[in-house]
């Protein structure tokens, strides 16, 4: 091996470990097909790989940023912090799937390999410093997710969700790539005589041109925003989200809701961090998207009868809150660091609650019956109080009630928004949160104050170690970090080493 390559490879070690584990699981699983406990072995290997990658990411979280692969990849505390959140997501998705897939007769080792591949893609998104790397990382994430969405091959809904996700995802990839091409053309003179897709060079170029943008660059940024907006599920581009979340197997939905969104927001933060010198041109568009996303997601969630669909719309609303954080980051240099810390904290809290609430749905799913609708939850407090009261914690956290992690996440984003002087958008965030309380409490009301009928899931349906661990850890984390948010200070500080615009 070329000795100069070693520091580069060492820098991306967590991502590499995840990729290699994915390949080992994929090959090992098909080699040991006949053996009875192959599947648990695949899951265990997956968890070991995730733990190893997590160890390396955690050990480097305070280090300064290093730029490797000729400027294409940057490893800083932001990317390491995001990587930790993503690895936790992957670990939870693995734990949730073990019994659930078996009950659905879908216990295929490919699940674990695909989860690992898409995790490696989203980790790369968080450390991409070049738009082409970003594009490839998004595709690594997405292509694995298309397959995962259609993982229940015999289920028509799952197939439909895979097709919808695939067609719209590929459509978005077209916008993204064309946007990158236009940015490449629009930054003529950034690298010698030519253009560039490197975010550091773009940022420098924009500062030297005194924030004057040309039409080609502006069109490029607009198309890039459309492409990233699709991945993050922002409102005019959210149409796929509810269908895909509803149709995909629940453990995949949990992974998608957390992993893909975290990756997409890490990418949005990276990209728009570089475009800050020309923020007057695009900030207003981002703010309009944020308001549309918050209200669109929350208002559409109110009418849903399917809990998975309701959580899909709620995830859209949460993308809106995160976008408020991105606007604060770009709007004012004083709010830059605070907003970044708030976004990381929010992503972590959102991940815990998402895995937990989908975990409850998996907990209640029986062989041959997925727990997905409000009817399944009717009077749950009488038939399965543990599940009902744990779900209560998650719903309160999603709504942002104090003493939960969701409250502090929202509070920090709200603070950052006020610090950036964006009062109007901060107020619309507060109003949107109040609307959201209605449908989260509707779930609580259905569980606690309605009588169980024939549809209600009776008692513990699947007894699974993995689901118990996931739900338990998320619930504990949800309350613990809600009472002691300063324990996550290292995540909030993690944003301090991100490249300055």
């Amino acid at each position: 091996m070329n000795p100069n390559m070693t520091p580069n490879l060492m820098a991306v070690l967590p991502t590499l470990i995840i990729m290699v584990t994915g390949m080992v699981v994929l090959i090992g699983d098909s080699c040991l097909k006949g053996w009875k406990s192959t599947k648990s072995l695949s899951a265990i290997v997956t968890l070991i790989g995730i733990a190893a990658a997590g160890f390396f990411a955690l050990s480097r979280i305070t280090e300064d940023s290093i730029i490797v692969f000729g400027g294409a990849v940057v490893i800083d505390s932001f990317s390491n912090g995001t990587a930790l959140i993503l690895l936790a997501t992957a670990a939870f998705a693995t734990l949730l799937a073990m019994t659930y897939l078996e009950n659905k007769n879908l216990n295929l080792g490919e699940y674990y390999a695909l989860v690992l591949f898409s995790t490696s893609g989203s980790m790369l998104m968080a450390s991409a410093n070049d738009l082409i790397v970003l594009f490839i990382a998004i595709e690594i994430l997405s292509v694995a997710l298309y397959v995962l969405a259609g993982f229940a091959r015999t289920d028509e809904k799952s197939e439909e969700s895979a097709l919808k996700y695939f067609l719209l995802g590929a459509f978005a990839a077209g916008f993204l790539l064309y946007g990158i091409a236009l940015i490449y053309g629009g930054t003529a003179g950034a690298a010698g005589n030519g253009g560039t897709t490197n975010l550091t060079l773009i940022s420098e170029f924009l500062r030297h041109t005194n924030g004057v943008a040309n039409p080609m660059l502006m069109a490029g940024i607009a198309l890039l925003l459309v492409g990233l907006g699709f991945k993050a599920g922002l409102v005019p581009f959210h149409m796929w989200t509810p269908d895909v979340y509803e149709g995909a197997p629940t453990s995949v939905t949990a992974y998608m809701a957390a992993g893909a969104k975290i990756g997409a927001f890490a990418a949005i933060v990276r990209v728009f961090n570089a475009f800050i010198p020309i923020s007057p041109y695009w900030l207003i568009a981002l703010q309009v998207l944020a308001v549309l996303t918050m209200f669109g997601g929350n208002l559409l969630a109110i009418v849903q009868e399917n809990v998975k669909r309701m959580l899909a719309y709620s995830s859209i609303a949460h993308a809106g809150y995160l976008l408020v954080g991105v606007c604060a980051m770009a709007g004012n240099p004083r709010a830059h660091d605070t907003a970044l810390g708030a976004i990381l904290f929010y992503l972590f809290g959102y991940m815990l609650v998402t895995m937990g609430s989908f975990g409850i749905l998996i907990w209640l799913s029986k062989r041959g019956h997925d727990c997905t609708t409000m009817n399944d939850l009717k009077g749950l407090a009488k038939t399965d109080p543990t599940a009902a009261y744990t779900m209560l914690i998650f719903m309160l956290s999603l709504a942002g009630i104090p003493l939960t992690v969701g409250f502090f996440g929202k509070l920090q984003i709200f603070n950052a928004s006020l610090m950036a002087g964006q009062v109007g958008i901060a107020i619309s965030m507060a109003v949107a949160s109040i609307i959201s309380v209605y449908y989260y409490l509707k779930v609580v009301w259905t569980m606690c104050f309605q009588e169980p009928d024939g549809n209600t899931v009776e008692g513990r349906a699947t007894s699974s170690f993995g689901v118990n661990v996931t739900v338990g850890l998320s619930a504990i984390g949800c309350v613990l970090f809600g009472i002691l948010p300063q324990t996550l200070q290292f995540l909030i500080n993690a944003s301090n080493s991100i490249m300055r615009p």
Partner: protein
Amino acid sequence: MEITTQHFLVLSAILFTLGVIGVLVKRNPIVIFMCVELMLNAANLSFVALGRHFGQINGQMYVIFALAVAAAEVSVGLGIIVAIFRSKESINIDEVNLMKF
């Protein structure tokens, strides 16, 4: 008339627009996917033309990446379409409508 970089960029913009329109109006997933490929290739054309214009190798290099990604997408996409055809005997996008808001 000499063919300049601008001609390439205009052509690629036209191809991209055609691709977008195709995705929005067509009802067959395979045709929709062909239109998506048209969008990707419009971007590739821009990359190559701009790379030549700037005298940089980057543009050509990006195209290789984009082609590899497009190939991976094709394999997964056609797999999904075949799976749907097996269970439905049809791949009209209007018949894939179990879920609506």
